[in-house]
């Protein structure tokens, strides 16, 4: 049912345009991470935001360990959101793991997508033979181990929600405004789906034109990975950013917006 998907993925629609621009957040955060860039597109686009199941204000009861064991489960949810709102001619903006989730969805139903804008994409995080993903398997295992330790940190962070302290309303306010909140068990599994994935073979099947935004000094998706994606994905444009780190839409929103606008300008002029 339509409404089920919209509630399950906490879908939010804003903006004054008709063409859809669909933003998909990365691992470890939620749709709030887009708030510094969406404003720039509100006049011309219909902005669609959502949370993956297990992140943000999604419906945790909808979590299904088997379905979400691989990125395919997340791609299905992305397509569910697209169907629920009946979106066509989509400009998809995906951060980090969502780049690959977007690729999977666009390969499944290419007719729905007009552009893919991929911020810090990586089809494979682990080095393998001549392929440089940036990490050894033991690095990724170190992340899992560290996340196991953050179970307790997370649980503490979420404790006020469970306590529901009526005499200390600031606790509840704090929680309502709590960003990047993630269910720790689900986050741990999402990390496995993300960092153990190998989507290299999916890149060549993409027919949708794409923009790859590559940060400087991005340890999660290093230069070599951006180049690999660009070389293996037909119709792709690689732009290197002055922005450093892995979240340019949060650390350098102006540059991010400018590059997206520049890329989309010919398409907009054509309509």
């Amino acid at each position: 049912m339509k409404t089920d998907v919209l509630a399950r993925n906490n879908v939010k629609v804003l903006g004054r345009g008709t063409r859809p621009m669909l933003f998909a957040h990365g691992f470890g955060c939620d749709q709030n991470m887009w708030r510094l860039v969406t404003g720039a597109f509100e006049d011309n686009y219909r902005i669609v935001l959502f949370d993956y199941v297990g992140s943000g204000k999604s419906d945790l009861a909808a979590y299904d360990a088997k379905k979400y064991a691989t990125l395919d489960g997340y791609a299905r949810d992305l397509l569910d959101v697209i169907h629920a709102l009946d979106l066509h001619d989509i400009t998809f903006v995906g951060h980090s793991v969502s780049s690959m989730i977007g690729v999977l969805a666009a390969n499944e139903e290419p007719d729905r997508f007009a552009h893919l804008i991929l911020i810090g994409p990586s089809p494979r995080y682990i080095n393998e033979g001549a392929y440089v993903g940036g990490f050894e398997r033991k690095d990724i295992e170190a992340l899992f181990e560290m996340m196991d330790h953050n179970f307790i940190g997370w649980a503490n962070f979420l404790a006020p929600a469970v306590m529901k302290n009526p005499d200390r309303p600031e606790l509840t306010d704090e929680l309502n405004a709590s960003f990047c909140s993630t269910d720790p068990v689900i986050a741990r599994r999402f990390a496995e789906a993300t960092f153990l994935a190998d989507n290299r073979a999916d890149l060549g099947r993409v027919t949708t034109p794409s923009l790859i935004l590559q940060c400087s000094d991005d340890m999660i998706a290093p230069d070599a990975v951006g180049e690999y994606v660009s070389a293996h994905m037909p119709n792709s444009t690689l732009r290197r950013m002055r922005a450093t780190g892995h979240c340019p839409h949060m650390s350098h929103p102006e540059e991010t917006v400018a590059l997206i606008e520049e890329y989309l300008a010919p398409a907009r002029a054509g309509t």
Partner: protein
Amino acid sequence: MTDAGSDLLDRAPCGFVSFGDDGRICHVNTTLLDRLGYTRESLFGRHFETLLGVGSRIFYQTHFFPLLRLHGHAEEIFLLLRARDGEDVGMLCNALRRERDGAEVTDCVFLEVRERQKFEDALLEARRAAEEANKAKSTFLAVMSHELRTPLNAIGGYTQLIEMGIHGPVTDGQREALERITRSQRHLLRLINDVLNLARIEAGRVEYSIMPVPLQEIVEATLPMVEPQAAAKSQRIESAVPGGIHAAADREKLQQILLNLLTNAVKFTGEGGVIRVEGGERSPTEVYLRVTDTGKGIPADMLGRIFEPFVQVNTREAGSREGTGLGLAISRDLARGMNGNLTAASTPGVGSSFELALPRPKEN
């Protein structure tokens, strides 16, 4: 900061680091320098990220950094800091991003948590052991159920032979006793099969052969199996499933789910009730089958639990508590195994509705 304040911070019994929005370290206290073995000069201007082990760096980039930008603060984040000699030191970090001297800086306080880390390791180890034990339980159940079935089948088979008079004439009294043996044997076999099925699913040992299955055909093939029981309670079964709709499913398992839903509907609906089967397309990628009854309904507090193994709702209509309470657990596992789902809605006093969602077959 005053000299005294700075001195205090320097010698505080916890680590302290400040870095700018570009990530470069602009302040670090002596406590942390000493613990990690660095000199102040070697860290000044270095990116904060380089102080972290690789796993912690990923975590910093994907969760900690966004959290700081959106929230302005983060509490009790566990990070491994890399000492100069390569040792990874587990520390809890509280961080606050704020404006100072016209620029944004992030202040982090670090507390070494060696003891706590030990407790947490023990907890994790305990969890792993529990998961192992659960797996062992499933295997045990699968083996046991299998072992129990063999003698039960023998009991059933030999009872039948006696009933047929193979070993000489059977008196009426004996026949009655033999029927009781058979009834009990069948009941026990059903329970064991349920347990075995669930154990197999939990152990991930179920194979699905997915193909396009016409929904209408499955419904028409399943309804006759419950019609006698429904007729005995003067219930009406209505079916509205249009032809031409296919699910990508395992035919046998789809029928098993539907049969379970229909059997439950008949069981939990009173005399003269109505059971309705509907089906259709829900989206370009999904189809559904819905079984609605006019039974007593399921109380809201039970609705979330009915898919758990061994949970049953007590109602008078159900009569004696037959069965294991595994039917819905098995059905939902099977539905999910076929990339679908099984959900329930209910209004006490009005009835319940179970909806099976399944993917549509991909065209070509």
